[in-house]
């Protein structure tokens, strides 16, 4: 189905709201503007019940300069159709409140907290409106408002963060972080334990907040590509592809086929080296250093391949708006195939070894279980949702770049059946996530393997002249953590008016608080690693 047909399919069912909404179409995006913010709640309830849509993100934008007040866009997506629904409401500065969707889409709680921090607009009914990203910030300073300057010096006063008190006989609190024992990013975890068992966990993140969204508004558009690579160092390709695609959508650029192929190759290489690293991390957390060091050698090998191909071990500096900067020659492609063939041969041997090792499997099995309903409520994406049988994959639902042209070998009926049986065993524990990553790795290998010839039509196209001011576009990509969304609104003179980033980490982080319940404290590291969230990608 074309984008137009999908949109009309959805819009035809919305006729009874006709008097309340205004409709704008843009590629695969359908924008609906609600006249009355108070109708938002009922409307979204209808969207969930009748369309089974997921809440992807909530984007707030300070458009007071354009006499729109604040605009809040609720973005919904479908699990099956290549389609994004934007439901927009206007909020006047004099009434800085908007309706909360917490009882329809529990995942909205997080986005509403973020808007409360950054814009000072409060979702009245939201049951948990604690500060999320800004620490010790004054109550009347909101960084993403347009009257706040990037370099404004903010006087911070030390405030005590209020963790939910858990009391009772024998209940102890264990504070962990922000600096952890390993070489990982900072974040605070407050465990409440009864004996060894975790009965509550509250996370407090935001320690790596660097003001990326505000910074982008003050940078030339071509430099923002470098910034997007540094949202999370290990997701550099996914994030820069999502950003570039957003701009290319706005500018209506069609990039060369070869550039699409190169983006795909690097995206899959990024997925492979990160999955190797994560699987190794899981193994070292369960005390199996043999497997961990073997897998880390494979990771290093892919990183050395990255270096030979792109000049950067973690693939910085590959993308640019309109294409790519790095060429891949036929020789390089052969190098990729050789290295991957060898690496996967070794990997399968290690994997066989692991499967037959009961001490590893026992630690992974039934550890950190999440429920399917929870995954739906929290709007989980990527491995975290695939481990419980919810297939979310931006490469399939919203095919972008070269992915629609990839033809993988069709599975035989027997293989399909076997895969289905395998999926039934996925109960949302660490083992399921381990297996989902292994599946993902093999799929990436198959995708790269299917590229045997490179097209010869140039690396990039130029962006052309000035982009239309205040036009917007949604870019998306699948990182190794899951679906990544970048929404960009262009300002005057090719500047960026608003850059909203939603990484998979942001939508997935809350699940850790549920997954660790009834597990022992010693299993927290392996549960955390099995999800493998980025702190930097969450805090921005």
């Amino acid at each position, binding site marked *: 189905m074309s984008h137009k047909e999908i949109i009309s399919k959805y819009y035809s069912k919305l006729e009874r709201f006709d008097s309340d909404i205004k409709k704008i179409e843009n590629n695969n995006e359908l924008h609906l503007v609600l006249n009355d913010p108070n109708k938002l709640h009922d409307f979204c309830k209808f969207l969930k019940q009748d369309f089974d849509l997921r809440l992807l993100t909530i984007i707030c934008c300070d458009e007071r300069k354009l006499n729109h007040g604040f605009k809040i866009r609720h973005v919904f997506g479908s699990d099956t159709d290549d389609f994004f629904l934007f439901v927009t409401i206007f909020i006047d500065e004099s009434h800085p409140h908007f309706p909360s969707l917490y009882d329809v889409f529990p995942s909205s709680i997080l986005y509403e907290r973020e808007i409360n921090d950054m814009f000072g607009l409060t979702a009245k009914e939201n049951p948990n409106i604690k500060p999320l990203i800004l*620490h010790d910030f004054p109550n009347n300073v909101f*960084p993403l408002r347009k009257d706040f300057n*990037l*370099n*404004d*010096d*903010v006087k*911070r006063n*030390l405030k005590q963060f209020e963790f939910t008190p858990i009391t009772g006989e024998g209940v102890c609190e264990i504070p962990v972080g*922000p*600096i952890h*024992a390993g*070489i*990982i*990013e*900072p974040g605070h975890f407050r465990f409440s334990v009864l004996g060894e068992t975790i009965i509550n966990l509250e996370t407090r993140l935001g*320690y*790596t*907040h*660097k*003001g*990326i969204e*505000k*910074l982008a508004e003050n*940078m*030339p558009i071509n*430099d923002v590509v*470098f910034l997007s690579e*540094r949202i*999370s*160092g*290990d997701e*550099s390709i996914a994030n820069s592809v999502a950003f570039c695609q957003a701009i290319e959508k706005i500018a209506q650029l069609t990039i060369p086929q070869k550039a699409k192929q190169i983006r795909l190759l690097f995206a899959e290489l990024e997925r492979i080296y990160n999955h190797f*690293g994560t699987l190794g991390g899981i193994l070292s957390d369960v005390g199996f250093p043999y497997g961990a060091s073997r897998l*880390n*050698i*494979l*990771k*290093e*090998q892919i*990183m*050395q391949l990255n*270096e*030979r191909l792109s*000049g*950067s*071990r*973690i693939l*910085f*500096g590959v993308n640019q708006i309109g294409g790519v*900067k790095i060429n891949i020659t036929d020789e390089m492609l*052969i*190098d990729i195939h*050789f290295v991957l063939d*060898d*690496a996967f*041969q*070794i990997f399968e041997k290690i994997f066989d070894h692991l499967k037959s090792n009961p001490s590893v499997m026992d630690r992974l099995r039934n550890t950190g279980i999440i429920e399917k309903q929870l995954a739906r409520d929290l709007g989980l994406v990527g491995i975290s949702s695939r481990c419980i049988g919810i297939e979310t994959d931006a490469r399939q639902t919203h095919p972008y770049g070269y992915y629609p042209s990839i033809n993988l070998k069709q599975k035989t009926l027997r293989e399909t059946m076997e895969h289905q049986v395998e999926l039934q065993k996925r109960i949302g524990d660490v083992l399921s996530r381990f297996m989902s990553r292994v599946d993902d790795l093999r799929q990436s290998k198959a995708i790269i393997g299917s590229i045997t010839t490179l097209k010869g039509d140039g690396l990039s196209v130029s962006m052309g002249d000035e982009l239309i001011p205040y036009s917007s576009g949604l870019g998306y990509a699948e990182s190794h953590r899951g679906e990544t969304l970048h929404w960009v609104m262009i300002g005057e003179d090719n500047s960026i008016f608003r850059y909203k980033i939603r990484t998979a980490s942001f939508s997935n982080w809350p699940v850790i608080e549920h997954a660790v319940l009834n597990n022992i404290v010693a299993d927290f590291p392996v549960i955390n690693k099995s999800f493998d969230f980025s702190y*930097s990608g969450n*805090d921005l």
Partner: protein
Amino acid sequence: MKKSDKTNHLIDMSFKSVAIKDPLKMDDTIAANYRGYVILDPDKDFVLKDETGKILENSCPTHAITYQNDDSNLKIHLDNGKCILCGNCQVKSPELIKITNKFDLAKKRRDDLIETFSMSVPFGKTYDELGQELKSKINKIFGRSLTIREIDAGSCNGCEIEINALNNSVYDIERFGITFVASPRHADILLVTGPASKNMERALKIAYDSTPNPKIVIAVGACACSGGIFGNNYATTGGIDSIVPVNVYIPGCPPRPQALLYGILMAINKI
């Protein structure tokens, strides 16, 4: 078609050691097109013109290149502490700017990272030689292992990937008597990454205060040296040295494992 020789030794499943023999050697393990370090290396007949200077200054997203024109005395300053190795400047002026695959870029003083038209001296030591030198120095000074505590003060996690790589079987830093410890109270060296986000300022100070004397602080990556692409804004402080005293700066975005080892050696030489 032949397999790539460079990777062959890694993917052998036998029990032989996979650790690279000479990690600080410049030749075979580092790709020729690896972007490691930007130098000002003018071609023989290169003449700096006013417009070239301005173009270069504007081409840099992190303002690492500054152009000076006092009384027809033209100067280009290149601050490697700010450089994120994007390669923009090389595209604009390939006859002046060269990107090398070197990693021996750690400096003791922040100012030493700023280059003004100079030819660089080639660095000859291998990773192994550097490591052995480090090992003997550590033995002499401490009579025990050197312990490092890594602190992420808001990095994008790129530097963490490379620091983690130091511990893998290929770089295997423990063979030189260097271990990463879980608490700053056990540490001789603090390895700090990130532009020092304001939210981490307090935690970093506490960690610094908890580290026993004598202590060494190493700023890792362009962000930690200068704020990098994030600079100094409402959420960042623009470099670790605005919070705690820094002994050695290791630039790069991110610095490769060899560069980290070189920086640690330089820090030890300071004691």
